[in-house]
């Protein structure tokens, strides 16, 4: 009798997930899969020869890129340098412009609600526009060259940087500042010894992060005529000169990895 009870209790052990949740998850799962399959069908509509043909073709085409023509590395370096320079200038200017913006969009500094929400909204809208779209518009305004690229990078990184830094400022511990005021510090001393030391490591780390993003972004800006290495990549692809294009891609790859490595090391040391 006792044994039987024990067994029936074991059979009826309820699942840890309630039935309703299970049903919900199943439905969501099928919706996601369904939408995925539909997307796959939709995106392959215009494909000539269908999926299988494309995949078998891919290997043949990829082989055209190899071996990369390493003789052109000398010619690839100057535009690569321009690309890095564009990113450095853009990051510097964005960093300077971001300070007032970050203060304006930090709730504990900007006590005026309308001002705070206006800055926030503008920054949010800025962040939704992809960098390359900005570059297209600036190229339309300024013509082909380095300047539209730099401007696009500035606007793009401003949105990200101001958001990250304003969040850091909002997380600042106000107690040391109050203690300083209580012991008779003036506002400049409060900012210099109370606020800046708390924000600076994060600030530097975010600036380096944005520099990384900008270098990645500036690599492709040339594709729309906004200067840098993307321009010659576009040309070489236009001439169907795939080994040269591969060299450019490899140079980009190495530079991005190197800068990411250095910036990671610095950031680890900072925080």
């Amino acid at each position, binding site marked *: 009798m006792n044994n039987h009870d024990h067994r029936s209790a074991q059979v009826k052990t309820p699942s840890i997930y309630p039935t309703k949740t299970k049903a919900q998850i199943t439905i969501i799962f099928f919706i*996601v899969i369904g*939408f*995925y399959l539909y*997307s*796959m069908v*939709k*995106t*392959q*509509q*215009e*494909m*000539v020869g269908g*999926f299988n043909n*494309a995949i078998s*073709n*891919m290997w043949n*085409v*990829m082989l055209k*890129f190899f071996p990369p023509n390493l003789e052109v590395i000398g010619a690839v370096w100057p535009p690569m*340098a*321009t690309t890095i*320079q*564009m990113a*450095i*200038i853009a990051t*510097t200017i964005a960093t300077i412009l971001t300070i007032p913006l970050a203060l304006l969009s930090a709730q504990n500094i900007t006590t005026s609600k309308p001002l705070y929400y206006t800055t926030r909204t503008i920054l*949010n*809208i800025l962040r*939704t*526009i*992809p960098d*390359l*779209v900005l570059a*297209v*518009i600036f*190229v*339309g*305004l*300024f*013509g082909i*060259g*380095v*300047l*539209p690229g*730099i401007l696009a990078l500035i606007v793009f990184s401003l949105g990200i940087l101001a958001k990250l830094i304003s969040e850091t400022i909002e997380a600042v511990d106000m107690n040391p500042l109050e203690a300083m005021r209580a012991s008779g510090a003036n506002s400049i001393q409060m900012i210099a010894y109370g606020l800046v030391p708390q924000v600076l490591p994060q600030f530097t780390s975010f600036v380096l992060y944005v520099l990384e993003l900008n270098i*990645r*972004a500036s*690599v*492709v800006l040339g*594709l*729309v005529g906004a200067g840098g290495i993307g321009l010659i*990549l576009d040309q070489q*692809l236009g001439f169907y000169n795939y080994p040269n*294009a591969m060299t450019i*891609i490899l140079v*980009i*790859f190495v530079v*991005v*990895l190197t800068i*990411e490595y250095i910036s990671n090391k610095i950031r680890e040391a900072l925080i």
Partner: protein
Amino acid sequence: MNTQTLPPKPKVSIWKKIKRALIVLIIIAIYVWTFVGIEIEWDRALERISRNFGVVIPKLLSPDWSQLGKVSASMLETIFIAFAGTFMAAILALPLGFLAAQNMSGSKFIAGIGKWILSAIRAFPNLILAILFVVAVGVNAFAGVLAIAIGSIGMLGKLYSEVVESIDMKIVEAMEATGANKIQILFYGYLPQIIPEFLSYAIYRFEIDIRASSILGLVGAGGIGTMILFAANNREWNEMGLILLAIIIVVTVIDFFSARIRRKIV
């Protein structure tokens, strides 16, 4: 006499001073290199802007509503590309994520290889991948899907591996001690710990991919970028205004819902 003196400043060792001086020197050198190296053609740019500003900006701000049908169709295609790409990446990143997690792959060496592969993938900008896939599978949206998928694996794999590395092994041990078998441990020990965060990261990546896929068309990989390219080449700034508006609205709406879903999951 009770003169007030400030507390002494903390002593800085000589090595630290040398290090600081070196850092300052390096930064100055970088800036000198930058500003000497770059060539900005100010005259031409200023002449252009004075001519274009009054034409382009007002047109951008008054969108051409007659193109609404075309723009929404290609915005929809952009969403399809991003969704299919993110979905593929979310699945394909699983093995790489586990490989790069030290507590799963067992050895530091194998995890190192996994991490290296993931950061190598991350080093390729999305658009470069798109160029490669356009050459490979032709000028169509599927090239965009592949570019998004491969591009997202790098970041998702890295985030997955961090989640797996932070698994609480005590739960697994407790289950082992109470006699659970391997499959039970997988379903009730590992999965409940990792699935919410995996999903949350995949949804976050979808947000990024929506932005990324809206520019893929600039290299021929489908989506609304194709329209951006045509509008810019034909200087149809009214149409560009509508495209911009479409991107801003769609990205904002998707960001909003994705943030809500993620808050609910984790």
